[in-house]
């Protein structure tokens, strides 16, 4: 029993810390926090941005004829895309939890995370910048499947388990997957997740746990690759409603789980073929850039560079 605290010491009591000699390994999903000079996260101050707004874009996407294979596919009706504003994201990880609940993603636990077998489809990477080790600048970057139009993962699948859909989504056919994990090895963004253990078997045993899973989303089995689907179940639900009402899908009608949960509205989903859509407006901003654009993967997910404008008085401390 904890004794009642008086107002004299409402929040703290006398605490002592002592070494026990015991050791416990820490489990973490990110082991490296420096950008090493690469432009994964693009940050600039407001004066820098105003001087050269195109700076964030870097080289931009390579020309269309950069590949031996000419991209001959056109997405005439809907072409889904996602925009992530790094200026808004403050790394709360709400999107990770939302995605995990929406998409029936198993919680793997400390031991499996220690083996790099975490399974969440979206992660928030952190990068530290600056020379002040005590108080570095922190950048957050939500990272999910980029839904590349020239997806490197698809070409290495020996059984064509991951292919492009008619609306440009990088789709997984779980039943076709034989678990070679080539796709994951060939993904430059490291966003594919492999199901090493039969996590959903436990749910089958308990009738109450069966109801835990989202009925709109496939429950994946062991030995199968999985990844962000752009919440395809929500896309299909909106499509069915729109078809019944005989109209096109409206902008904002589909909100991905991460977008819905983001308290900073950093994530915006929509049809990039619709020039009036919110996502298209964000994509036409000069701050927009593509992650690892030089690989010519042509991602459907774009990032908005972080523009900071700190008060000089605050900066001086």
């Amino acid at each position, binding site marked *: 029993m904890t004794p009642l605290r008086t107002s004299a010491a409402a929040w703290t009591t006398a605490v002592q810390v002592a070494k026990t000699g015991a050791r416990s390994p820490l489990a973490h999903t990110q082991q490296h926090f420096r950008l090493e000079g690469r432009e994964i996260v693009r940050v600039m101050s407001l004066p820098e941005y105003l001087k050269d707004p195109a700076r964030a874009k870097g080289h931009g996407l390579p020309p269309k004829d950069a590949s*031996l*294979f*000419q*991209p*001959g*596919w056109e997405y005439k009706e809907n072409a889904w895309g996602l925009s992530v504003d790094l200026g808004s994201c403050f790394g709360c990880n709400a999107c990770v939890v939302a995605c995990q609940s929406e998409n029936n993603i198993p919680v793997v636990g400390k031991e499996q995370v220690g083996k790099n077998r975490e399974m969440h489809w979206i992660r928030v990477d952190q990068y530290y910048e600056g020379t002040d080790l005590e108080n570095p600048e922190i950048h957050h970057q939500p990272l999910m499947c980029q839904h*590349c*139009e*020239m*997806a*490197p*993962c*698809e*070409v290495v*699948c020996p059984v*064509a388990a991951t*292919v*492009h*859909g008619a609306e440009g989504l990088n789709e997984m056919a779980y039943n076709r997957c034989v678990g070679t994990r080539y796709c994951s090895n060939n993904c430059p963004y490291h966003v594919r997740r492999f199901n090493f253990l039969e996590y959903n078997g436990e749910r089958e045993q308990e009738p109450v746990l069966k109801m835990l899973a989202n009925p709109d989303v496939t429950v994946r089995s062991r030995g199968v690759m999985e990844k962000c689907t752009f919440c395809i179940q929500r896309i299909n639900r909106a499509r069915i409603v729109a078809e019944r009402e005989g109209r096109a899908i409206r902008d904002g009608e589909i909100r991905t789980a991460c977008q819905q949960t983001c308290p900073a509205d950093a994530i915006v989903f929509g049809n990039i073929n619709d020039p009036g859509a919110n996502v298209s407006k964000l994509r036409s901003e000069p701050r927009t850039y593509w992650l690892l654009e030089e690989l010519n993967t*042509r991602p459907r997910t774009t990032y908005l560079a972080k523009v900071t404008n700190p008060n000089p008085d605050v900066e001086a401390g």
Partner: protein
Amino acid sequence: MHGPQTEPLLHGVMAEFRTPEELLEAIGAAKAAGFTKLDAYTPYPIEKVLDALDLHHSKLPLLVLGASIVGAVGVFGFAYWASAIDYPLNIGGRPLNSWPAFIPATFEGAIFHGGLAAALGMLLLNGLPRPHHPVFNVPRFVDHASKDGYFLVVESDDPRFDAPSVKRFLESLAPVEVNEVEN
């Protein structure tokens, strides 16, 4: 021999020589005499005998080339049909006919069909498998063909074949022995 038969009674007339030089001379003489269906048997391959009998022109390379082309075109065509016509998929934004990906299988198809044609074509062109050959009806052939005998056969399907006169002709070439080879 009993009953009706389509094959002639004789396979040919065989002469045995002591040295390859004698055999080569005999081949030259037989060709000069106008015989065309000649065959020679030596204990080991002799290039000059092949030259003399004009045996270098095999149809096998053409057969292998044809089969290889059929294999390559067939495998490439199958890959094209499977990925561009029967089950088109957008894989990594690449065109349906992503031909560089089909090349390894096409190459393998060419090699496989070429190899098969070489092995089977060799058997077919040599008339193999063949359990017995008439030349083994000659006792000296059995004893000396793979040791020290050099044999020349004028075969019976030669247009100028006439057993007694061929026999006389071969005997004039100073052989060890001349035999009629029964079928």
